[in-house]
């Protein structure tokens, strides 16, 4: 389903089931109002998140990707978030190389008790993405867009 034209952007969230997903639940139970752009994918651990998933989301036209796991030293599986931190930190450095602005991807730690923190994270990240606007990938890769061309290629051929 398309995003609400002009009002929403597409933000994909990958959340650890044991902490941030629960934190988002707590925010819900507390009726803590949040922007509606975010769509959450539940994963068993932030260590399950392959950087590929995030790149795939951006290539699919996501305007922002948010990953949230357990605080360091509070991982349900003892060390998953440490693996996540290393992988995601590397990814963060690489995304601008791919042409995706640094601010479109964030990872954060929110525990299952931090409903208010989750509200804050979602609200500020959504604002950040809205400030950046629609993803530049869209203009290139969208079905009606020009697509990827080899450098110096003939536009007429595309």
């Amino acid at each position, binding site marked *: *389903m*398309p*995003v*609400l034209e002009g*009002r*929403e952007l*597409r933000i*994909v969230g990958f959340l650890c*089931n*044991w902490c941030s*997903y*629960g934190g*988002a*639940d707590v*925010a*819900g*139970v507390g*009726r*803590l*109002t*949040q*922007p*509606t752009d975010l*769509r*959450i*994918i*539940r*994963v*068993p*651990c932030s*260590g*399950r*998140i*392959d950087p*590929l*998933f995030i790149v*795939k*989301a951006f*290539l*699919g*036209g*996501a305007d922002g990707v948010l990953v949230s796991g*357990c605080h360091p*030293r*509070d*991982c*349900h*599986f*003892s*060390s*998953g978030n440490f*693996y996540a931190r290393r*992988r995601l930190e590397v990814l963060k450095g690489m995304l601008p190389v791919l042409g995706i602005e640094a601010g479109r991807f964030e990872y954060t730690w929110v*525990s*299952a*008790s931090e409903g208010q923190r989750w*509200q804050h994270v979602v609200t500020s990240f959504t604002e950040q993405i809205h400030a950046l606007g629609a993803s530049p990938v*869209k203009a290139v*890769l*969208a079905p009606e867009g020009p697509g990827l061309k080899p450098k110096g290629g003939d536009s007429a051929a595309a």
Partner: protein
Amino acid sequence: MKIGVFICHCGSNIEGTVDTAAVAEAAMAFPEVVYAKDLMYACSEPGQDAVIEAVREKGLDGVVVASCTPRMHEPTFRRAIERAGLNRYMLEMANIREHVSWIGKNREANTNKAVDLVNIAVEKLRRDRPLTPKSFDITRRALVIGGGVAGIQAALDLADGGKEVILVERTSSIGGKMAQLDKTFPTVDCSSCVLGPKMVDVAQHPNITLYAYSEVEEVSGYVGNFDVKLRKKATYVDWAKCTGCGACMEKCPSKKSLDRFNEGMGGAPAINIPFPQATPKKAVIDAEYCRQFVKGKCGVCAKICPTGAINYDMKDEIIEVKVGAIIAATGYDLFDYTKYGEYGGGRYPDVITSLQYERLLSASGPTEGHIKRPSDGKEPKTIVFIQCVGSRDKSVDRPYCTGFCCMYTAKQAILTKDHIPDSQSYVFYMDIRAPGKLYDEFTRRGIEEYGTRYIRGRVSMIVPKNGGLLVRGADTLLGQQVEVEADLVVLAVGAEAAKGARQLAEKLRISFDNYGYFMESHPKLRPVETNTAGVFLAGCAQGPKDIPASVGQGSAAAAKVLGLFSKEQLENDPQISQVDIKRCVGCGKCESTCPFGAIHMIDFRGQPKAEVIETVCQGCGICAVTCPQGAVQLSHFTDNQILTEVEALCLF
């Protein structure tokens, strides 16, 4: 595959801001969806029956329920589709309540979002496969960490239930904070008279092994089969020989060891048995103050000990135990009141904590039950109690209410009048919180029968005056300044998480909140469970609570463990990793990253291959990301499943 989608109204909880009928209609357009319906309450019996009926009538192979969080009702709907004849893992849930309807009011945006979440659930379900759990054996022995009243109760209930219990206590005696109390509210019965028999029961119960002066060093394994290493700290006294006679304490020349049991009121000998009812009643040497350790010569206790129990060369000992379940009952510590400059910040000897005052009231305390103020040993006539010291105060990062201070302050004021009939107690309070059986009646008795003067307001400063203390504060009911010349000030210090609680949580792989209290699985419905299977909570480790609540939780946690142990075998969660042996190149990366040791390398026709030990794997999926070949896949969270969810959400 035939998929049925059920959208729950949850009364008006979801329907109020999500057009569920429209979501159902949109769901019909998703691939392989043959049936979509909105239900009033999907979790109710009629709701579940409607799901079951649809599965049977439409011949569904899988079900998507869009309702509340899967952390709430996933087990409910798994059981429901199992009753309908499906594999219980052919279910996906879309969280359209906590993550949609409750966090936004825009019906259009919410409906739109709910459709997206149903879409990803459908796409994930299309790639789900039926799974079957494996069974494994349980070690029917429990570990209770912490020997306060909650841990004691849990250990006794488990032991009475016929299960072996290992009780670990950090200090040299069980009893915890309750053993330090003189009397308990609202009955004003003697604390050690109530607790003492329970402590003796622990010592004598054939099913309980008590490790006092020991701590949890390391925990590995999983529900049913935890391997725990305990550090038995060196006491420098052979407890097998020590009879608890106390001769060493009398002769010890060093009397300046910190008397923890008496909250630092007066010194203790360097070799000490903390209190007469200590269980086990064994001596421990404080190496920081013992002259043998500090100066290298003394040996008085070794000479005096009639059984020759003293051993200065003792070392810490590591004990390995196997248990099936763990109860964390590590209690609380007191807020450090010296953070409050207005109460003197620890400079005035006659400003003491409530627990110190409790020791002054106690017949086994440093003053043998006579209230004498620390500075000059005089009997105080005017006593000021200040409530909420480290409770309900954001400025010291303690916004929560400790909950039991109002009651113990009322009790201490009553006891003061009993001890010193011509005394006058004042209580500065914010609100009186007495919500318990006979609690409010008790505080009223303090005011009406014992003449305790309650002043609603905060104290702004305490300064020395004429050998006493001038307490200046506000009476917010009268709207004026109040000054009381006090002989003694007692601060009702709040509770905070026990020191080392966070480190223990890390070892147990359980979560804690912002203040270090352990997180329960559900605040209302699973108050003693954690999100780590096999680990339970009791007492103040989960949050401040009074003695009846701690005892109740101790019994509750024991009941949970007994329930767990009553099963023949446990079943694992089959959403675990699987190795595609054709793709595996035997690099061993998964083996080295697995936090549980659930992957080992095997020899397959002369080649190394990874193999998952199914009952050990906990389903985190770290290995799946580590595998350079994509040979390890986590069932129900495969790469393809997550990628297809991403695709469903993205626009092209």
